[in-house]
């Protein structure tokens, strides 16, 4: 059993359990970081999205061995950053939230997009969110939320 080193929300961790454990389970069960949810367990719904080196990934599909040396950011960490606050407020104001189960994943997907492209078009936003399923909103107000975060956060990203 090898040791696995990574940084999660700014804190360094060393894990010594089987490397095939899913990152999602480590986050939710071991670290009580429950913002990321399990909706499908097969990488289709994006409810478990987190950032791995600032790019969005499905944590249900990532064995913890694959995060060796990586920086993982979950919503618990991201919400405390200025960028996180910006998306949180934009989503709230836009009506992007209904049941909220997909929302943490949507926020992380939006963050990943804006880190890469601070001024995305609607098509680019829709494409960036296409790995995250939402059954409540019809996506319209989530897309608006991302656009609002881009507008309000000029210079931030």
């Amino acid at each position, binding site marked *: 059993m090898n040791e696995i080193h990574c940084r999660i929300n700014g804190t360094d961790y060393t894990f010594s359990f089987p490397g095939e454990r899913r990152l999602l389970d480590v986050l939710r069960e071991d670290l009580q970081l*429950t913002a990321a949810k399990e*909706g499908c367990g097969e990488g*289709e*719904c994006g409810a478990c999205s987190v950032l791995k080196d600032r790019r969005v990934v499905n944590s249900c599909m990532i064995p913890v061995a694959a995060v060796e040396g990586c920086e993982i950011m979950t919503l618990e960490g991201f919400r405390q950053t200025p960028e996180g606050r910006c998306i949180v407020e934009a989503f*709230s104001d836009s009506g992007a*939230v*209904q049941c909220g189960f997909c929302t943490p994943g949507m926020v992380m997907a939006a963050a990943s997009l804006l880190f890469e492209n601070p001024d995305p078009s609607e098509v680019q936003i829709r494409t960036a*969110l296409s790995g995250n399923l939402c059954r409540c909103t019809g996506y*319209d107000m989530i897309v608006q939320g991302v656009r609002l975060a881009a507008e309000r956060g000029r210079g931030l990203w």
Partner: protein
Amino acid sequence: MARIRAYRNDAEAKVTGTARYADDYSFPGMLHMVPVYADYVSARNLAVNGAEALAQPGCIAVLTASDVPGNCRYGQIEEDYPILAEGTIRSWGDVTALVIAETREQALQAASLVKVTAEPMEPVLTIEAALDPYAPIIPEGKDSNIVVHHRLRHGDPEAVFDQCELVIEEDFHTQVIEQAYMEPESCVCVPRHDGVLEIYGSMQHPFSTRRFVSSFLDEPFSAIEVYTIPMGGGFGGKDDNAAAVCARAALGARITGRPVKLTYNREWSVRETYKRHPYRMHYKMGFSSEGKIEAVETTMYADSGAYLSVTPWVTWRSTAQCCGPYGVEHVKADVYGVATNNVFRGAMRGFGAPQVNFAVEQLIDIGAHRLGIHPLGMRRMNMVKQNGETVTGQILDKHTVSLEEVMNSVVHHIGYRKKYEQCSRGTSDNDELYGIGLSVSYRGSSLGAEGMDYCSCVINGQHDGSILLETGIHENGQGSESVMMLILAEELGIDRKRIRYRRSSTSTIPDSGTTVATRGTIMGGSSVVVAAQKLKELISSHIAQRLKCSSDEVTFHDDKIWGLTYDNSLTWEEAMKELYLQRVAPYAFGTYQGPDVSWDDTTGQGDAYFTYVYSCQCAEVMVHKHTGKIRVTNVVAGHDVGKAINRAMVLGQMYGGITQGIGMTLMEQVQEAGGKITNLNLGTYRIPRSTDIPEMEGIIIEHYDPLSLTGAKGIGEPAIELIAPAIANAVYHATGIRCTSLPLKIRPEDLS
């Protein structure tokens, strides 16, 4: 796209990920439960052997029906659903055993070693097979697989068809749909020191959950407390089934004396839980030469699956709304629910209306085309009007019948008339064919004559000026708590920041029915008004003297309480302090009972619902000539919601409903092979993604409804019930091909 600042009391918690859903809870000493299925669709002499499983590390118990102290079966209408199978397997979703272990991994490992044997029987899998006189009877103790038969008799269609200019006969089929809420079922059950079982679960009906658990464990309601916690969507799908999940966890907690968590994965959720009923409908519709619908005769069959659930209520709505929003004089409808060995069907957003609308709104377009009448004129001529009569004999004189206005708004907004002329109708110069289509509907609000309609509210004012509010309506994600808070703030004339929605439980508020049927705002909101009026009367009677007026002259606005002149007022805090000094609690309890409805089972006549929501949706499509792929490019929806309490959330319901409807129209279908579902997860059961959905525009139309104390009606289900025929009509005007089955499919060879 609309830009309205949204209000939700739970937005911050949900966007920051601090909102805790059932699976996010854990308790010291908590055990994990998993269900055990059997690979049978129909079988008898079921035997479960848990010995090997029990010997596994960490395994605490293997529970079967024989461990159940109370009634193993439950159902909202008939007690036929086995929370744990007893001797017989009637569907592939039946749960045969429950395994409890220290960890989920151990429970899963042990569950794989539970031995289930049974004697397989030939399953009955189609409506046709179930109706065969020699078919095995699936429902226990019944003499037929027809589990319900609703009749509607209005006039004499047989006598009228002969005189019609045009008679159309057509068959329509709809498919099995999975609700596909993002959060699979989950429940944590915790034994409390006082003997009460606390339940934290994902469900939209805490009271029904309490009934299930109570009956399953043979314990009184007072020993079970079901808490409202955030839940990840339901869409009708988290009523009885979600309650069964809670009942199983409760059994585990009772037997072990420890907290037990039962969290479903997606495959179990899809395998076990009820779906939208697939319908087979035959319609015969007769028109006069001017386009008036003279007569309708219809026979429909809904596959109920192995258990009854709410099939009688779903099919009842199909019966009452069998002619869409048209006031037809001569109607005969026979609507049947039929038992099969498929995984059972139950409630899903729309509840028997999307299916009939798919048929009726295409039939009227077909009729218009054959008679050479514009589809708008055809609808205008036939639709229900103010003081008009519905097919159930109800006179619509108690609210504003706004269907024509709603349709006109949508038509003007999207530019339907001009675009209708531009439809490709099978030919175009490029690779895509363009079409536009429209549909209209009316939807009876709330339960109607299918159920008991009432809701309670508690306003617990505090002497510091803050207020705790709760109602019997459940927050399913739709924003009901925010709506109740906005209504209360308006009623009391106070700043909504004073109000906190209390995390309620089944032990703190009376049973107010289930949060389904688009009844949250109309029933819950009205109960808030009743309680608020009582609170205002109470406050007035105790502060009138200080305001130098009589109690009926006291008014509430601008966060203050006023006498007759501007110099006689009290801040809300001052008034609460005054009540405190008078030793009066600013507390009010209100119950709202739905207005009377009626129904005659033999004729299908009566005042089916106390009010109706009027809707129109219009869709534009492009159909690719070489692939047949249908792309929805624009949707405009108009709904008369009575009054919009929280405009952004009304639009959110519209867009979400339309999107689910687009899924039903173009993508979704539960695949059943020999009674076994083959697309068990979201990779194979595809629901719309952000890139599948076009621009949408919602038009909110408001005609204050006098029978709702807030004027509001509702929007949840109207939003989903009519997009399928709008798209089907658009596809027809693009291609000239009429699709009578869902999901719509255009084969490239049909286009050449």
